[in-house]
């Protein structure tokens, strides 16, 4: 089960996506639908903060969706940052290279 909470901090131009539960092939369509709406609201302004503190499990499809957020930031022009990454998720991101893709895209080196 996946639950996403999207909230806005207008003053600091930050939009938060808080992931609760499982991000895998069974929940990916909901996730993509909601993130797409968020990109459109953000446009080329501000920062999208993805909060992983409620994430229980992520599979390769879920990681693909996280990468899509990073690529979308380049396409739309907003910034991305990650919060609440557990040690386990950090290890997965580190092995696969998610953080290096983030650094490359945010640094406009990709």
């Amino acid at each position: 089960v996946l639950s996403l909470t999207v909230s806005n901090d207008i003053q600091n131009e930050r939009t938060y996506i808080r992931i609760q539960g499982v991000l895998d092939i069974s929940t990916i369509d909901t996730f993509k639908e909601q993130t797409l709406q968020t990109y459109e609201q953000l446009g080329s302004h501000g920062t999208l903060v993805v909060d992983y503190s409620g994430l229980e499990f992520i599979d390769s499809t879920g990681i693909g969706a996280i990468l899509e957020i990073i690529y979308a930031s380049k396409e739309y022009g907003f910034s991305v940052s990650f919060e609440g990454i557990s040690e386990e998720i950090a290890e997965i991101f580190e092995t696969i290279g998610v953080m290096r893709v983030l650094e490359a895209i945010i640094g406009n080196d990709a």
Partner: protein
Amino acid sequence: MTSRQELTQNGAATSVDKTLEREIQLAKKIQYKLLNGKKPTMLSGEISGLSVPARNIGGDYFDFYPLQDGRIRIIIGDVMGKGIPAAMLMILARGAFRSAAEHTANPSETLTAMNNALYDDFRQLGSFVTVLCADWDPISMKLTYASAGHSLPIIVRATKELADLPTAKGIMLGGLSKQTYPQSEMVLAKEDLVFFYTDGIVEAQNSGKDAYRLERLQRLLVEASSRQAADIERIVVDDIHAFTEGMAQKDDITMVVLKV
């Protein structure tokens, strides 16, 4: 709708289902044959690979490519996603490996060539693949490896100790263009065991949602390391089944066993 129309529609749907089922079975056969091709002849030691898809067909893959100087190039990979879409991309990755292995000098160059070949397609399809590529040289007894977002192999020494492998971190294939992949190496000794794997093994879950975990796999490999490659494969699969109590798994399970 008349009952005749309903019957015709139901009949057509059944026929489509049967065709689809037949095609899935054929695709499964193709994938099985591609994964279980000829095992390379080695100057010494033995190598074996096994993949158990979670569904009919899967996105995991392994391959061996014998090089002219006696080295064997090994690859193991995990395509994002599951089922038929992942299997289609797995075939793409296999072709890129076969073509790259032919004209590249080492695992690092193979991964760069594969990423160059796959990047545009994978980016367009919103997918990626993690792979570990290694060269085994039975003359110098050296294992050279590079990773594109994939876990390093587990090495159990003939002395039953786990080896501490130097890292070799590159990012997944299809993530960024123009990538280089650092490689590392390790000298092995007779009777050492090298176990390459995909995360479906360590993430296999039982009914209580507990994961199989790396530590359990390492302990099992230390116990089984003196056995032959095919035995080690069977022991690992049996232990996963015992742990999961036959529960259907979400992810494919793939391994390559190199016994020096």
